[in-house]
């Protein structure tokens, strides 16, 4: 039996308050860490746990921390990426609204490991309740001596500030997020240098996702063996999955990493609304869709990569047989076109062009050569911009064309959308 840890207390009334969090053992992991571990030990422990970042890229968290150079004479910064904007994703919002102290405790553990004195939580501006709850939680933590100078009477001091986003998807990309905190337009930068070496204000910086931080107190409390005992060896631990679209029981589910996509959709989320699944987008709209015949794939970084898609943010969007793939592809491309920061030409111009062609197809005015044109555009966009936004646009459209070419052809042959 799998015991939930991340969502465990969310149904308790007042779960966002420090009193509730402490009543369930909250901040005991922080005390344990500050009194019993050196920063080096802590980094090794998180490496041993093999925690992979929950923001989308799946980079090993302990390894990321270990890249922070020691004794540069510069301050070290920690950032929490709470700019959750990947369409289909709502896990970080739930964590911040209903259990914000779990994230804060995780941030303090991470800050101690890397030697950071200041953290910024970058929360997207639309998340009004998350912002309110996190601000309130920070005040409570300061009042209890869990933030500020000499935390829990140790030499460790740390301040956390909230920095609000203002409606730009690209801020979820880590170099764009840092540009945004520095007060610039959020346009990604080429790496290297990586943020661990030259990040915020050119200082060593670690950026982790809300859910990644939320895992840390549990790893300290229950141990590395417990964490590694859940899910596949290559990317273990509990995982939050966001189910939406044409599914009977949409919602947030906590289950082991690596659960089969079919089991997740059919057994846990009640299956497709019409009764017949057409395809599933497994990791937010950036992740290529998977047709029904290939749903027996593990929901973890490696299995989905091998299947030609990605775990991403674990925003699982279900398309049933009443859903139009061309319309979904059009909507997705409109999104990437709107959110392209405009810096790189292939992404800025390519997405716009593809969007126009897709609108023509969905309106029933498509031409035979449009499908080849879209494939040509995907090739031109993919791999040719600074960040992953252009790649995601090309990759997701490419999957729709590959698996459902017939549906695109029907739009052209029938001169209308067969579904609307």
């Amino acid at each position, binding site marked *: 039996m799998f015991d939930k840890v991340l969502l465990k207390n969310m149904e308790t009334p007042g779960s966002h308050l420090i009193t509730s969090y402490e009543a369930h053992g909250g901040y005991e992991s922080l005390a344990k860490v500050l009194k019993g571990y050196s920063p080096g030990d802590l980094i090794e422990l998180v490496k041993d746990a093999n925690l992979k970042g929950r923001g989308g890229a799946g980079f090993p968290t302990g390894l990321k921390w270990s890249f922070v150079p020691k004794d540069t004479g510069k301050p070290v910064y920690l950032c929490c990426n709470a700019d959750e904007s990947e369409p289909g994703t709502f896990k970080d919002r739930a964590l911040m609204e209903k259990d914000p102290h779990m994230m804060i405790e995780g941030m303090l553990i991470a800050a101690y490991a890397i030697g950071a004195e200041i953290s910024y939580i970058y929360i997207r501006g639309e998340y009004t309740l998350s912002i309110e709850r996190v601000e309130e939680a920070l005040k409570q933590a300061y009042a209890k001596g869990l933030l500020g100078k000499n935390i829990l009477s140790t030499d460790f001091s740390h301040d956390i500030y909230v*920095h609000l986003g203002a409606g730009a998807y690209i801020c979820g990309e880590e170099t764009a997020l840092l540009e945004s905190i520095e*007060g610039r337009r959020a346009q990604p930068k080429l790496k290297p240098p990586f943020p661990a070496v030259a990040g915020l204000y050119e200082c060593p910086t670690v950026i982790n996702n809300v859910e990644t931080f939320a895992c840390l107190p549990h790893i300290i409390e229950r141990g590395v063996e417990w964490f590694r005992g859940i899910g596949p060896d290559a990317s273990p631990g509990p995982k939050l999955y966001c189910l939406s679209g044409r599914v009977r029981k949409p919602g947030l589910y906590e289950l082991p990493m690596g659960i089969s996509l079919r089991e997740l959709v059919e057994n846990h989320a009640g299956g497709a609304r019409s009764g017949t699944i057409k395809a599933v987008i497994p990791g937010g709209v950036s992740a290529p869709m998977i047709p029904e015949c290939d749903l027996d794939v593990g929901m973890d970084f490696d299995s989905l990569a091998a299947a030609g898609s990605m775990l991403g943010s674990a925003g699982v969007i279900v398309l049933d047989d009443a859903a139009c793939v061309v319309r979904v592809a059009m909507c997705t491309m409109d999104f990437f076109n709107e959110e392209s920061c405009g810096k790189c030409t292939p992404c800025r111009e390519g997405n716009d062009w593809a969007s126009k062609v897709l609108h023509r197809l969905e309106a029933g005015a498509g031409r035979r050569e449009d499908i080849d044109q879209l494939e040509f555009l995907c090739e031109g966009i993919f791999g040719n911009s600074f960040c992953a936004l252009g790649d995601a646009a090309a990759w997701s459209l490419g999957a729709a064309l590959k698996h459902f070419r017939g549906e695109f052809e029907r739009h052209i042959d029938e001169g209308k959308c067969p579904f609307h």
Partner: protein
Amino acid sequence: MLTGLEEQIDIIKSRYPTRRSAIMPTLALAQASEGPLRGNILKEIAEVLDVPEIWVFEIASFYTMFHTEPVGKFHIKLCTNVSCLLCEASQIREQLEDRLQISTGETTADGLFTLSTVECLGSCDTAPVMMVNRDYHENLNAKRVEDLLSQLMLQVKD
């Protein structure tokens, strides 16, 4: 326009090692307090933070939540991304346009309602979803939308 906000602006400035970082939070503060960023407000912010005005302008013009044009008393932001699309958000959009007699992107003549479509609001399990000012309205259907609009209109009459 920034009168009365000095103390809060000082707190913002104290949180960052550079003044440039304070631009975004100060714009948000000014907009929350005074409404859309019109007139000399960008210049005033540049002066109070002692940064070039172009730095303030480039932020105000990049991020979609900063408004440099007037918006209605009630700003309706309807999500039309994939999960909401699959749950018939386009019907909600048509209903809003019909009922308010405006197209998306416009404001009603009485200045009460602005209708915008926005990208994912992170509430996909309760699609279709929209925000009115700072509040979420979820699991929308024709009746819920009609009830909400009537209630908002009533609020104004009171």
